[in-house]
């Protein structure tokens, strides 16, 4: 046993960080990755139109993701929070730049094209926002209860990227960032007025969004969802096919690569929006419930890491990361099971996509970093 030694946070380099890795946490992530790969293999090897390159690309993203996860685990999260304004500013500048030089697709400017991959700054913004909010919320000067005055600055920092993203336009991602910020704020000690304002804002928000922000086609999508018979754009068709896919899986599913809905391409966007539907069709209630449960365990684990963290900063970093993963999971699965309209939110790790996979692993890496540094002694 090592002798008693008082270490401060900057002095970790001489110890082995990997020996303190949270293996339970890692195991959960490993299990989700395994499910993701099995499911993704099934999706991409359909005889009608195989997407082999898509499979290997996603494998590459996941490998890259783990690499990032371990790198972030090795670095003290306080480092990121200390430089959070720097990351945040760079991201905001990237969001501004993408409006001018970004790749446009379907009328939206969201990407920088770097040859074999494209970078979506709105994705990394999610992580930058976690760090910046964590560093603000953990400041000593704000030990007292939050009121209107104290909330203005973090509110501004959340709304600024939202506005830039709405301008792209990508309302979905902007809202997601808003929800993410709001979720973290729920853990603050706020005074009563602020709580009231908080919920009032939430209540006012929906009708305001409906009347002023949503375009007709977006309203249609929501209306269609509420009554599946009105659907000029085919999204209702997608929802119905997804529900058929999930339901037809019954208890134990149709078996690996046997999902007719997915394999015969009745299910559109099966490698992004509807990965969960494929999984549910092929592995049934057992498989879908198991997967949902693993995600719940991941969330609960992050909560645990958060409550065990050595400081407030660590706790808020975890809560921020949690909110990203939680809301992506909940929205994506609810889309697939027909409880939410199709808004194009990916399922962490399971859905195809570089930007979102990397963002997920960055978030998980930050949590791991917090988890490693929960002990004072070694």
């Amino acid at each position, binding site marked *: 046993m090592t002798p008693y030694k008082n270490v401060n946070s900057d002095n970790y380099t001489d110890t082995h960080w990997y020996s303190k890795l949270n293996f339970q946490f890692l195991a959960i992530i490993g299990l989700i990755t395994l499910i993701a790969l099995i499911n993704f293999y099934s999706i991409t090897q359909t005889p009608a139109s195989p997407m082999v390159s898509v499979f290997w690309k996603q494998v590459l993203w996941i490998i890259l993701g783990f690499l990032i996860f371990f790198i972030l685990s090795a670095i003290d999260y306080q480092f990121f929070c200390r430089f959070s304004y720097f990351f945040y500013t760079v991201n905001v500048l990237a969001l501004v730049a993408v409006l001018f030089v970004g790749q446009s697709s379907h009328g939206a400017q969201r990407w920088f094209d770097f040859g074999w991959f494209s970078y979506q700054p709105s994705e990394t913004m999610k992580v930058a926002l976690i760090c910046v909010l964590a560093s603000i919320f953990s400041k000593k000067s704000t030990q007292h209860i939050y009121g209107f005055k104290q909330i203005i600055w973090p509110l501004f920092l959340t709304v600024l990227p939202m506005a830039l993203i709405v301008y792209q336009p990508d309302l979905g991602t902007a809202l997601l960032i808003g929800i993410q910020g709001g979720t973290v704020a729920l853990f603050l000690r706020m005074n009563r007025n602020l709580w009231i304002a908080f919920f009032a804002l939430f209540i006012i928000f929906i009708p305001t969004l409906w009347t002023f922000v949503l375009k007709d086609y977006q309203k249609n999508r929501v209306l269609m969802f509420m009554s599946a018979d009105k659907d000029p754009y085919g999204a209702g068709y997608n929802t119905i096919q997804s529900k058929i896919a999930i339901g037809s899986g019954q208890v134990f599913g149709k078996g690996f690569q046997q999902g007719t809905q997915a394999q015969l391409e009745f299910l559109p966007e099966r490698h992004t929006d509807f990965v969960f539907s494929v999984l549910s069709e092929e592995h049934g209630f057992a498989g879908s419930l198991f997967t949902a449960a693993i995600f719940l365990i991941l969330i609960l684990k992050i909560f645990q890491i958060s409550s065990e963290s050595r400081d407030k900063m660590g706790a808020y970093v975890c809560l921020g990361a949690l909110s990203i993963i939680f809301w992506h999971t909940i929205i994506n699965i609810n889309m697939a099971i027909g409880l939410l309209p199709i808004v194009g939110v990916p399922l962490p790790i399971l859905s195809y996509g570089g930007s979102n996979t990397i963002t997920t692993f960055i978030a998980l890496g930050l949590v791991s970093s917090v988890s490693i540094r929960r002990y*004072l002694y070694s």
Partner: protein
Amino acid sequence: MLKPMSEFTRMDTELKTLSKRIHYAKYIFSVFFLIIAGRLWYLQIYKGPDLRRYSENNRLKKQILQAPRGLILSRDQKVLTNNYLELELFLTPQYSKNIEQVAKIISPIIETPYKELVQQIKKSAKERGQFFPISLKKQLNLKQVYHLRLLEETFPELNIKEYIVRFYPQKNQGVHLIGYTGQISKKQIEDLNQKFKGELHFKSGDIIGQNGLEQSFEKEIRGQDGLSFIEVDAHSRQVITQSEFPFDFKSEKPSSGHHLVLTIDSDVQEAAFQAMNRMDRIGPRNGSAIAMKTNGEIIAWVSSPGFDPNLFSHTLSDDYWKELKKNPDKPMLNKAIQNHYPPGSIIKPLLALAALQEELITAETLINSPSKIRIGRRTFHDHKQVGYGRINVLQAIEESSNTFFYQLGQQLGMDKMAEYYKAFGLGTSTQIHLSGEVSGFVPTTQWKEETLNEKWQGGEDLVHAIGQGYILATPIQALVAYNAIATNGKIVRPYAVQSIINSENKVIQKISSKVIKDLSEEIDPSHFETIKQGLVRVVHGSKGTARWWRIKNRLIAGKTGTSQVRSFNRENLYKDCRLKPLKDRNHGWFVAFAPADNPEVTVAVLTEHSCSGSVGSAPIARDILKAYFDKYPETKVSHHPEGKNHDSL
């Protein structure tokens, strides 16, 4: 010894709250997963057997039901554009057991070579997917339908579907105004979805307006496609009724687009078309003939030569398309707005107005107008070799004296002239709602110095005084400018659609006339009256350049013009135009309005290479006016009624 740091910091009240919050949050967040679990149970266990049966034995297919486009009607309720049904053969590779076999059987029926057919099917299956139906033959005839219907039973991959075809009963008459339809291109899908973002949705296979009003009013004419969800078995045959489907949803019927009621009068239009195709000494004219009520309602619109828009409703053969594109007479060009010409002598009344307003002359001022004028070393000729003697502005307009107007132009200078020409709308768009309008051109001395880096020559003032040189005008600009003379200075916006009605015959939008600019404040109304007198003499005077083209009991005010194709020199001026090669012959203009004392209609005719306005264009304008007055002997046109201007249209 390992001990969590949190053990020591629990005392911190804040972390304490945080831990408490996290504790509760665990439960709240779990509820979301509980909902998911419940829903999964509902779908997979409760509805599971239903949905399993559904997915295994059946297929739900979405079908798009094509919506008919709205009709286009003339002001006198004649259908100018209609729809009818045709049949089309589709093949879906996914349901085919043996593509070669099917191809062999249908190849003689649809008269397509076997090899080509197989290639087409395989290519589409590879590129667009097995499930994508391929159109093999359109416009099936009855015999083909009979044979194919029998085959449909044994070959589930074959499918005969109805489709809507746009039909233009008037064929090439007015095609440039109405336009034509055709299948949307990949680029158009992107562009139009961008343009009508959130309003309309365009997808591959859509039929859209490609030109003219069909294009400009796409949003209004276009219907909304319907959807039907049918359940089909493995052979693509429909199996059960929709009510048995485990989720509640209905098909949506296609809704027809709105109908356009044009300001075009079918008889006047017919007359204009016939007049342009008249078989006289010159023969059918190339160019354009347009007529407008003085409030801006277009009543006739012909651009020649034309083409049959019905050919575009079907798949156009490449040969025909190439032929249209290569034709030197440019049949695809809407010459009333998409081509501009030197205005020639039709500019003279505008110059006369400028001279009167600038008090350079009065109606009575006599100016000696010889056969030629010398400026420096250049001589400027008149088309009358003996000169006119001392004449006033009325006589000058009647006989279209060049030397009279040379002198006005010389004294006013180009920039003053440009000011007036521009005031009458030359050099700017008329705001008509058709795409591709060119704006013509009015030069200024400054423009020449800046663009060509050359000083403006004194002689150029003279050239531009008779509408030659750099100045260019479209026929519709000429029409609008003369309409302004007719109405004492009102520049109106020409428009061709008077109302939009929905499929229940209810008017949903009325478009009324709009005065863009009123020149009566800048130019004294008495000057307009003077010019009108001159224009009447062009047709009714003993020496008028269009005196052969009168109508009984109607006073016509008009002006001929000759637009020089080649440089303006003495030889070119006096040589008999008919002896020159066609492409060197001058264009002829005639712009007129009637009745001169209370104008109702304005007409502008431009005939390409017809040598002169008086022979080439004036008879056409006369025919159009005659057709109008035959049909509307009594009507008085309403002058710019009070009401809301529809700027959006």
